[in-house]
């Protein structure tokens, strides 16, 4: 009986997500076989497809790491999307106005500016929470919309490339582009940087005193305060790092993939990052795995659109479903724990 229960516990979440996908596919009348084969070929079909998955994984991993630092400190940063845009904007401004600088100088400068811009954008709700007790949740969400409109404004006015009719910035010079890892793919060195940063975040949060403080503040801010930890400072610091990593994701997107600033450089990466962080239990390793999964899902969805004409929003549906099922998994199919109070 016990084994049965366990199997059900693991099967029902997967099954319900799969059933939803199949149901929607049947509803729009596509051939299930070609849809699924398109989906899987999209993810692992060839070197190029695999590289595309990693290209998608990179910003998700970076922004996901950012969210996880915030969550570890109890700073619920839902503003990664806006921070990513601000990071992209700052790096683009550097790339466009200082495009003549040598590669080895320009790229680090773009990195720093991207990181800082994202970090400062998150710092505002961070300071508001720490100093005035204002909820960071709504604040950071508002900042997403403001940032997106601000970038939209920039590329239509002062950053607009006059040679094109479309709202976008000038293309970056060679020197402002991240080098490719594999020829004839879009996979760039940002992927390696993201992996390295994941390791650094792990070391920071789990091995250093400051990282410990951040996690202690997230775990019990009152107790941390009572032993003399400056909780507000940690919230502010974690908001800066959290936004900084999201801003870094923005840098990686414009410098590694797009090579210019335009609308929609982030396809909801900032929101996906929240879910990446949640699914990865706010741990860098978990975040990396979750980012890879979501990246693969995204590429699979795109490929399914090409091969069977399925709208890519199916991926969004599946993702939302995964998170909902993830939230419900403890309750259904597993016996509730009882906690004594004495």
């Amino acid at each position, binding site marked *: 009986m016990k084994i049965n229960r366990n199997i059900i516990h693991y099967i029902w979440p997967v099954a319900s997500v799969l059933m939803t996908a199949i149901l929607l596919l049947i509803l729009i009348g596509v051939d299930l076989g070609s849809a699924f084969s398109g989906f899987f070929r999209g993810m692992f079909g060839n070197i190029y497809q695999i590289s595309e998955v990693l290209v998608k994984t990179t910003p998700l991993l970076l922004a996901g790491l950012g969210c996880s630092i915030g969550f570890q400190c109890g700073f619920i940063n839902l503003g990664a999307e806006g921070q990513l845009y601000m990071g992209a904007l700052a790096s683009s401004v550097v790339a466009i106005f200082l495009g003549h600088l040598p590669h080895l100088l320009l790229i680090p400068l773009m990195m720093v500016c991207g990181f800082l811009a994202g970090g400062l954008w998150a710092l505002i709700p961070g300071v508001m929470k720490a100093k005035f007790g*204002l909820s960071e949740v709504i604040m950071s969400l*508002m900042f997403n919309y403001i940032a997106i409109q601000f970038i939209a404004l920039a590329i239509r006015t002062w950053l607009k490339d006059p040679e094109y009719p479309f709202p976008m910035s000038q293309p970056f010079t060679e020197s402002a582009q991240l080098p490719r890892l594999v020829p004839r793919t879009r996979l760039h060195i940002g992927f390696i940087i993201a992996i390295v940063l994941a390791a650094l975040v792990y070391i920071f949060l789990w091995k250093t005193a400051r990282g410990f403080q951040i996690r202690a503040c997230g775990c019990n801010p009152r107790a941390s305060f009572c032993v003399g930890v400056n909780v507000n400072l940690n919230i502010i610091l974690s908001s800066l790092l959290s936004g900084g990593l999201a801003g870094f994701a923005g840098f990686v997107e414009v410098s590694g993939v797009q090579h210019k600033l335009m609308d929609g450089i982030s396809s909801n990466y900032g929101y996906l990052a929240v879910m990446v962080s949640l699914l990865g239990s706010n741990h860098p390793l978990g975040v990396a795995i979750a980012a890879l999964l979501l990246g693969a899902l995204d590429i699979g969805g795109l490929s399914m659109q090409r091969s069977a004409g399925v709208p890519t929003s199916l991926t969004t549906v599946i*993702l939302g479903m995964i998170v*909902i099922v993830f939230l419900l998994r403890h309750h259904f199919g597993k016996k509730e724990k009882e906690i004594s109070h004495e």
Partner: protein
Amino acid sequence: MNDTALLVTNLLFASVRMAAPLTFAGIGESVSQTSGVLNIGVEGMMLGGAFTCFLVTTYTNSFLLGILAGMLVGLLFGTLHALICVTAKQDQTISGLAINFFVLGLTSFFFLVLFGQASTLPDIKTLPVVPLPLLSKIPILGPAFFSHDLLTYVLYIVIILTTIFLKKTDYGIQLIAVGENPMAADTSGIPVKRLRYFASMFNGLMCGLAGSYMMIVQFGFYIENITAGRGYIALAAVTLGRRNPVAIFFVSLLIGLTEGVQFTLQSLGVPIPSQVFSMMPYLVAVIVLLFSIGRSNDPSALGVPYDRQERS
């Protein structure tokens, strides 16, 4: 009527239009938050309500069926949120965000499947204006507040009824108790979970109504992600309005005023990029949030799942 008066009237009229969906959603969220359930899924529930209302109205040509369908979808997601947060005791913020994502996916998916091939933007009729006798004759305010459609009047009624409900009835007291000290409510014999379900479902209904309003009063057409963060703005209004329906309406009016200003300036031909205006409601919402500093009186148990066995 001179030009200034006309301008003010038009501004206010546009503000009411913009404020109405925010207020509907804000009232739902107020009831939900009073009971201790934070739901940032208002965005998704509004979007789901809007799309369903649009769909049903398009195919049946019935406003009433459209509104009911929109509310039903809101109700479904409100119930789902309660299932996740009240029964499974999971994080309310994450649950709301997941619902927003799920709904965004679903609506985009079906919109593309059903209307993707259409060459023109599909649209529906909007509700006719029915000026209220006497009230609409009040100078300036009359045409601004009482020359609307029936759904706007429904909003006024909802504002009055929920105010009475929250402030004057025993249900309101019970709801406050559940949000402030669920253990006290439980030991007094109040069914805590049932009330939280009720509040969450009511929130869903109101958000569905808010979405429907956007369709059949405000816009008359649908595009992907048409709510574009209005649900989140409603949350800001709830925070400053301190869960008081009337106050939420006025805060929403203030936010709505930016849209009114946009129309006015555009009609006057002032060359300001549209992005500046698109940004305005969010900026105003941020300012609104700043004004709530130090005034917050959130229920003590807001965001905290209730578990009878788990006591300190």
